[in-house]
C-alpha cells in the first residue's frame, strides 16, 4: 500500500516537471486557478465583501440594530434622517427605519439564498436527467423549459400569489422555485451533453465505470461551475422579484418586514417623507448589484477557456 502511494507520488511529480518544462501551468488544479483569478477581479471582490457585510448586518440585526424591532413611538413619527437618533429617520408609526431595514434584510436575503439554492438543485437535477437520458423525456422537459422561458412570469406570480394563501417566505420560495428552475436546467443539460462525449468520460466508460460513477465523479463536478454562477446571479434576481411582488402587496405580507413591502406605501408618503422611499430601495439596489458583480467575477474566474 505504502509503496504504491509512493510510486504514485513520483509519477505525479514527474508529470509536474514534464509540464513545467513544456511551459504549462504547473501544479495548479482548476479550482486553484479559478481562485487566483477571482482574487484578481476587483469588482468581484467588492461584490463579495458587500454581500458579506449586508448578510452580517441582517443576521446580527437583533444585536446591532439601534432600536428594538418594531417599537412604535407615536411622539416621533416622520422624524427626518439625521446623525443623532434615527440615521434613516422614522416612519408613519415612529418606527426607526434603519432598524426595520436590518430586520427586513433578513427576510429578503433569506428569500434570495433559499431560492438560489432550491433553483440550483431542482434545475441541476432536471437538466442532468434530460441531458443524460435524452429521448422523449428530454424533448418533453425542454419544451416545458421553452414555454416557461417565453412567458412573462411576474403576471403569473401575481395570479398565483392571489390564489395561494399565506404571506410568508415559504410561499414565495415555492412559487419562484416551481417556475424558476429553467435557466439552470438548460445550462446543466447543455453541459452534460457536451461532457457525455468528452474523451475522459469515454475513457471512464471504457474502463468499466458504472453509470452512477460517471454521473457523480465526472459529469456533476464538471457541470458545477455554470451552476455556481447562475446561483449567485439568482440570489439577486430573486431579491428583485420578491421586492417587486411585495411592493405590489402580493409578496411578503406585513407585519413581516421585507425591503419590498417597506416601499409599499412609500409613494403615498413621497411628498411628506421621501426618505421612506429612498433607503429601503437603496439596500435592494446595492444588494442586487453586489451579487451581480460577484456572479460576473465568478463567471470569468470559472471559465476554463479564458487565459489566466
Amino acid at each position: 500500500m505504502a509503496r504504491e502511494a509512493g510510486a504514485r507520488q513520483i509519477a505525479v511529480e514527474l508529470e509536474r516537471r514534464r509540464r513545467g518544462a513544456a511551459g504549462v501551468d504547473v501544479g495548479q488544479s482548476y479550482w486553484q486557478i479559478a481562485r487566483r483569478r477571482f482574487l484578481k477581479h476587483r469588482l468581484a471582490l467588492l461584490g463579495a465583501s458587500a454581500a458579506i457585510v449586508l448578510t452580517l448586518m441582517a443576521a446580527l440585526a437583533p444585536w446591532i440594530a439601534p432600536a428594538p424591532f418594531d417599537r412604535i413611538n407615536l411622539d416621533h413619527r416622520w422624524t427626518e434622517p439625521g446623525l443623532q437618533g434615527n440615521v434613516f429617520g422614522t416612519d408613519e408609526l415612529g418606527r426607526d427605519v434603519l432598524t426595520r431595514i436590518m430586520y427586513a434584510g433578513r427576510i429578503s436575503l433569506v428569500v434570495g439564498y433559499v431560492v438560489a439554492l432550491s433553483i440550483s438543485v431542482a434545475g441541476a437535477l432536471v437538466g442532468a436527467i434530460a441531458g443524460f437520458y435524452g429521448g422523449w423525456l428530454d424533448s418533453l422537459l425542454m419544451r416545458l423549459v421553452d414555454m416557461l422561458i417565453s412567458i412573462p412570469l411576474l403576471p403569473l406570480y401575481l395570479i398565483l400569489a392571489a390564489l395561494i394563501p399565506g404571506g410568508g417566505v415559504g410561499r414565495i420560495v415555492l412559487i419562484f422555485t416551481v417556475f424558476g428552475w429553467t435557466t439552470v436546467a438548460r445550462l446543466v443539460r447543455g453541459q452534460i451533453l457536451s461532457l457525455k462525449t468528452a474523451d475522459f468520460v469515454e475513457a471512464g466508460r471504457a474502463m468499466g465505470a458504472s453509470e452512477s460513477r460517471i454521473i457523480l465523479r465526472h459529469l456533476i463536478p464538471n457541470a458545477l461551475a455554470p451552476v455556481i454562477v447562475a446561483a449567485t446571479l439568482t440570489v439577486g434576481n430573486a431579491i428583485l422579484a420578491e421586492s417587486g411582488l411585495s411592493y405590489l402587496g402580493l409578496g411578503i405580507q406585513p407585519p413581516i418586514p421585507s425591503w419590498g413591502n417597506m416601499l409599499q406605501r412609500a409613494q403615498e408618503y413621497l411628498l411628506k417623507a421621501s426618505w421612506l422611499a429612498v433607503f429601503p430601495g437603496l439596500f435592494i439596489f446595492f444588494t442586487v448589484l453586489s451579487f451581480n458583480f460577484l456572479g460576473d467575477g465568478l463567471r470569468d474566474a470559472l471559465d476554463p477557456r479564458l487565459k489566466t
Partner: protein
Amino acid sequence: MQGFVARRVVHGVIILVGLSILMFTLLVFTPGDPVELIASSNPDVKPEDVAQLRKYYGLDDPVYVRYVKWVRSVVKGDLGYSRTYGTPVTKIIGQRLRNTLALLASAVVLAFVIGVTAGVYSALHQYSAADYAVTVVAFAGHSVPVFWQGIVFILLFAVWKPWFPAGGMLTPGIEPGWPALWDRLWHLVLPVTVLATSGMAAWARYMRSTMLEVIRQDYVRTARAKGNSEQVVINRHALRNALIPIITLVALSIPGILNGAVLTETVFSWPGMGLLLFQAVLGHDYNVAMAVLLFLALMTVLFNLVADVAYAMADPRIRFD
C-alpha cells in the same frame, strides 16, 4: 426558409398549448365559478337550480371535456365576464392593450438605440474611461428594482424638479390636436425611460462583447486591408455582423420587459395591461387577470416568432439546418 418558418410556427403552437394547460389548471383553482356567483347574489336560487345550472354550464363534466370547451371559447374570443366591470373581458382589454403597446414599443426602441450605441462606442474605445462608465452604468441598470427607479424618478423629476408629470397618460381637459399629442409624449418620458433601463443595460453589455469579437475577425482585417475608411469598416462590415445575434437577445428580453411593464404601469398609473392585471388581482377579478396573462404570453410568442424570422433573414446560415 419556408421550412424554417414552419418549424418555428409549430414551436410557437406547442408553447401555446402548454400555456393553455397551465392557464386552465390555474382557472380550475380560482374560487367562484359563474354558478356560485349567481347563487350567492340571489337568495331565491334553490339547490335544485344550482344543480341544473351546473349541468347547463358543464361544470360537472370531466376535466378534459371542460378543457376542450374552454379552449374553444377562448379561440372564439370569449374570455368571460369581468366581475368588477360587468362587461365582457375583451371589451376592457382593447384600449389597455394599445396603451401597453405604446409604452412597450417606445421603451424597446429607446433601449435598443441607446444600448447599441453605448455598446459599440464602449467596444471601439476598450479600457477607456467611457468604456468603464458604460460597464458600471450597465451593471447598475441591471440591478435596480424597476418600481423603485420609478419612485425615485418621480421624486427627482416630478416633485423636486417638476419637469414631467408624476403619472397618468393625459392631462385632463387638454384641447385635442397638437397640444394633446405633445402632452401624451410628455407623459411617456418617465415611464419609458424607467422601462427601458434594464434592456438598455443588457443590450449595451452584450453589444460590447459581440463587437469586440467581431472586430478581431479576419473579414474585418480584410476590409481594412482593402483600404476602406475606418467608418466603412465599422459600419458596413463590423456593425452589421455584430447586430445579428442581438435580434435574438431582444426577443429573449421581452418577457422581462413585460414584467417590468407591470411594475412601471403601477408606479406611474399608466392605464395599460399591467395596471389592469394588478387591479384585477386585487379585486379577485380572475377572468380579467387570466386574459391579461394570455395576451402578454401571446405577445411574447408572436414577438419571438418575428425575431426568429428576422434572424433567419439576416443570417443565411440559420435557414439550412
